[in-house]
């Protein structure tokens, strides 16, 4: 499990907001937790995977993609806020993510 500090959520939030602002060519000021990734900013599902790769590298995470996939089926992500919440859970629980549903 990765060490979660007070700064972690801010760090993740900054990375996610900057990622979407850059990839979707939108002003970062127009992004908020309720922004729908596909409907509002023309994002795509691949972005989620790309962010996972970014965080896997940044926090040296031990998590398999299929674990995230199984979790995401039960907890679909639509907004930026939901995506940040899920990234935090991934960072915190890594391969034990599915145990949260047990």
């Amino acid at each position, binding site marked *: 499990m990765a060490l979660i500090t007070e700064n972690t959520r801010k760090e993740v939030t900054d990375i996610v907001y900057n990622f979407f602002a850059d*990839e*979707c*060519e939108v002003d970062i000021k127009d992004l908020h937790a309720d922004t729908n990734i596909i409907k509002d900013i*023309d994002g795509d599902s*691949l972005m989620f995977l*790309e962010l996972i790769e970014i965080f896997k590298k940044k926090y040296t995470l031990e998590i398999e993609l299929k674990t995230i996939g199984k979790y995401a089926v039960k907890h679909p992500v639509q907004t930026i806020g939901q995506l940040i919440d899920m990234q935090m859970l991934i960072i915190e629980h890594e391969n034990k993510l599915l145990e949260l549903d047990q």
Partner: protein
Amino acid sequence: MAEKVVITGMNIISSLGLDLETNWKNLVAGKSGVKPITLFDASKNVTRIAAEVSADFEELSKKYIKKRAGSQMTRVTRMCVTCAKEAVEMSGISFDQMDRTRCSVILGVVNSGNSSTEKETTTQNTIFKSMTNSLSAWISLEYQLMGPNFVVNTACASSAYAIGLGYEMIRSGQSDLVIVGGADSIINFEEIEGFNSLYALSVENDPPEKASKPFSKDRDGFVIGEGAGILILESEKSAKARNAVIHAEVAGYGFSSEGYNIMAPMKDGEGMALTMEKAIRDAGIYKEEVDYINAHGTSTELNDRYETMAIKRVFGDLAYRIPVSSSKSMIGHTIGAAGAIEGVITVLSIKNSILTPTINLDHPDPDLDLDYIPNQSREQEVNVALSNSFGFGGHNATIVFRKYAG
């Protein structure tokens, strides 16, 4: 009664320009787009020239393609989508007013352009960039079209096949509108080396603009070009219902396979002749009605000889009064895009009553004695025109275009 198929939009991106107007102006002026290769270091290639699309294209594409989507496309795909966007704009279509389940995309695509010249590829984008079907898929995605969307590969005849198939979709009542065309670029080390090993390319690097010389005595192979061509085919009924400008009509097509050789055309142009005959029959026209032929005219020894023989075989004495020209003398051979680009040029010839020339025809081959519109364009009324495309593998296509008479 079969639906009449009309053309309500079109566009070209080629070495002679990034929009329809510039291309036409340069084609009529008989300019060459062939220059030394800049897309990669060609110093080790025997052929070091090609008809490249201007680097300014990337700026133009940003007007139509978002950064995210653009990064998932190859340069060729961006060319195709940009070309299609401007063709759709020209047609004045609002897809919100159309039944999207009856709007389709059919493209001729030989390769997606995911070659060694492709820059900034990520592992995640590799698959998207390699998918030849992505070219039609991106266009379909752009407009949320829900009719069939697919690509066809018949080598250098690919986008002519796309035109024929699109025409058939509308004629048979399956679609109201089909975006047809193609895009291609094989200007990379491997493909040029490959074609050089087949002795298919011109090796006259200096001066580059003189290298592509179809029907000349001293022709020594084709020059690779790149680009995209798109036509918006629409049922006459649909076009009239929205008061669209109709530029011409597709009157028919002919497809054939030679079943002969993976590279060489069938001896004496027998297969080429069969294709033109089929197209004429399909269009229900008399041979006397044909005013112009936009030839495949590659500048190779065999193609130009056999295409000339085929035209004579089909038209007999009439062949001598039908002007024939090769756009490849100016824009090189754009491979999978050739049929569509040359189709657009043929439509513009009908629309503007101007025939574009075969440039570099300074030393005519005495065996090739048709009217090839040497070096200078010509004003001439055109009611019916053929556009020929013949591909490696014996894939042949002829499209018949006709002035729209209402």
